[in-house]
């Protein structure tokens, strides 16, 4: 069980380092919450296809993937 050791190392660095990370994630949350909700979904819920796939479907999954990628990036470049 080396968990306690790793734990100890984290204490000091955590607050300074993750403050920005935390803020970024909150920003990302707000962005995603806005984008995944009716007003913007309604705009994309129109006729039309992108490469044969309905616009709405592309929008939702594309956005979702982008949010995930940004979350991963935010964690990496803290």
């Amino acid at each position: 069980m080396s968990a306690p050791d790793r734990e100890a190392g984290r204490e000091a660095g955590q607050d300074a380092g993750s403050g920005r990370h935390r803020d970024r994630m909150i920003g990302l949350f707000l962005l995603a919450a806005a984008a995944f909700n009716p007003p913007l979904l309604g705009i994309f819920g129109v006729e039309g296809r992108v490469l044969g796939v309905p616009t709405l479907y592309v929008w939702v999954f594309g956005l979702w993937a982008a949010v995930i990628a940004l979350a991963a990036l935010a964690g990496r470049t803290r």
Partner: protein
Amino acid sequence: MEVGLDWTTVLIAALAYLSALFAIAHWADRREAAGRSVIASPTIFALSLGVYCTTWTFYGSVGRAATLGIGFLPVYLGPTLLMLLAPLILRKILRIAKTQRITSIADFLASRYGHSPLLGGLVALTATVGVTPYIALQLKAVAVSFDALTGGGGMGPAEGPFLDHGFLIAAVMALFAIVFGARQIDAAEHHPGMVAAIALESLVKLIAFLAVGLFVVWGLHDGLESLFDAAAARPDLAHLMGSDPALGHAPGGNGPWGAWVTTTILSAAAMLCLPRQFQVMVIESVDERHLDRAVWLFPLYLLLINLFVLPVALSGLLSFGGRIDPDLFMVALPLGGGADWLALLAFLGGLSAAAGMIVVESVALSTMLCNDLVMPILLRTRSRALARSADLAPLLLAVRRIAIVTILLFGYGYFRLAGSAYALVSIGLISFTAVAQFAPALIGGLYWRGATRRGAIGGVTAGTLVWAYTLLLPSFARSGWLPASFIADGPWGIAALRPYALFGLEGWDSLAHSLFWTALANIGAYVGLSLFDRPGAAERAQAAAFVDVFQSTPNGTAPNGAVPLREAPPDWRSAASVGDLTRVVARFLGPQRAERAFAGADPDEPAGPERLRLAERLLAGAIGGASARVALASSVSAGAVEAAELLRMLDETSDVIAHSRELERKTAELERATDALRAANERLTELDRLKDDFLSTVTHELRTPLTSIRALSEILHDDPDLDTDQRQEFLAVIIKESERLTRLINQVLDMAKIEAGALDWRIETIDAGPALTEAVAATEALFLERGITLSVDIPDRLPPVRGDVDRLIQVVVNLLSNAAKFTPPGGRTRLETRLESGFLKVTVTDSGPGVAAKDRELVFDRFRQSGDTLTGKPAGTGLGLAIAKRIVEHLGGRIGVADAPAGPDPESGKGAAFWFTLPLAANTADVPEFGVRRE
């Protein structure tokens, strides 16, 4: 459906798959025991969160997509949003759970609100009732997919009210859950084997879903484009590709609105509050940092498993129209397409999802029911019987197993009762709304210190009651168990109480409607009661420990100084014997103290709360409160020592001790600095006083000669007839007084220069003899005038010294004039020199009153006057000796005063011997830095 697999094949495959899962779990448990954990990986952690995706996802999403288009998505967007807030919320929950040793969400809430057993029991009960429909959903999904796969009713005689598929599945699942989660009692409620199996299960259902999706899109159709083209050509399907159905705008009408937002909020709350999510995410978490990867990996998992939902739904609708329940498309499409093996894989994926959900959920619920509902009641009502029992583990296991069976029976009962009236997702959302009732108390408890136990109990109770009225009872009504008029007209025909349109709130989606009312009741009661509540000290301390978890010190003391809880652990595990306590106390305090503390008690006797408190106090004195609790708990639940945890706490305790030592050291330093400052201040005040004295002395000294000069000058001026002798005498006085003034002013200036370090020094090798002679010559008149005998003893040849001739003369003149000043008329003064270990020592001895021992240091201070002892008023400027001291020290010598040795005036027996030394030139090679001052 025309084709189907042989039901025995399906059954064997299912059992084989479940056995494989169990084997994995067993293997993981063994690895864990051997110290090579397989679950200590962020990827495994993220995958285990995939237990969120149940048959609801696997079958239900397709069904929902078949009516709502992308309306199945909020259930996954909610958790995605929640994971984005993981650094804020989840990290805090994880930390708290670790420090407070939380075993379930009921335990978490109970601990937060002052270790309230009532709240714990309430949450456990609510969770159990709330999740029952969800378990029913799993049973239904497995049952109907089994039927779909085998062509329906394939199990022959196994039909009947209590022996249908659902019951058999429930029985198998119960067995499975018991085998997984309730084989043995683990103090920390860790189930590494279960987590490993869940992670694998998550992978299997993802692969199964993707395989079916790929088969449908590229096997049954020519890719996405042709599939969507085909769907777009059908007017009844085209609208599914838009946002209208999902957002609650049915084509051509205003449908109930709010479903999208409601579902997003509910699923985010459920991700946090569902007992199984709390179990895998918080309780089973082995490392806080695993969250960092889960933050994006788990949403990615959700995205992947949802990628093909709409295509499968559209394809199913194209292929089967309304002939087959859309919830079953996942099995029906491969089967219809002739890919029997893929259908079997899909069934296994669904089974996987169901098994994972049921196992984790029932384990989490049974832990809750056991720890927070049954055991507290048993402890209260049967405490004596329990205290007699040496080993409580069998009882606990029995309670948990019964709980698991009961939970599954409830689920089965609901499935029979109401299951057929709903699509899968609708059933699940009822459960989501129930567990969402914990969210206000949970999140509020993390950030709002003022939230109280009564508020939490009130909030959860109110929310749950409203939930039962607006969602649970109507579900019974819809399945015919209650009259249908209950929904349509309200109970007893009161329209205002219609459960789907409470107080006339119409036109809402039933979920949104329920969420609104439950949130209103829940948050309202929670906030309202908390605001008007006065929690006790223990509850406030617990609140602070949760809210300030990141600032709290290791031994559990909140930063505001709140006292950590010192009550005996309410935990049932504390049923320890006196022997146990003696051993653990002895381990930390030595055997003597342990023996003394528990003297006279039978080691096998149960300890009881009094002795537990004593032991905890003893241990807390040695290793701090929090560690004491852990030490006690570990000693008591044999085998669950968790040495690492204990060591960590011990480490932190010693950290604290080191910190306090450091603090003490700094305090001492501070005190010393304060003392020094005070001394400096006193000295400054003294110097200030001396300066004032000096100024008055100097002005006096300046005025005296000035007065006589002026008086005599006026006489000379006014009286031109004065005779020559008289005139000469007066002029002589004027000259003498002017010289005195000049000397005085020169001394003041010299002193100022020396003080400022602005004096010009010409230090060189000199012969001291002529300098001394010159000084004597300069002061001879003084002695003569006062009738003092000055004897000088300077050898002809003195060794050369290092010094400044002018300054040396000044020193000697100062000493001689000092002697002249204090030697009474008729007395003697003597100047002599001596060689003393590399120095030339010059001594001026007088027969004056001498210098008292206490004044010997002070006479060399500037502005010091010692003349008052003789004449009652200062006899000089007080600068002569101070200047001499500074010059001598600058030249590398020392200066001092002693009693006159046998005196030049033996009769008086008094006299002072002022001496100073100068370094010999030959000596300076060894003492190059003789210019250094010595203070």
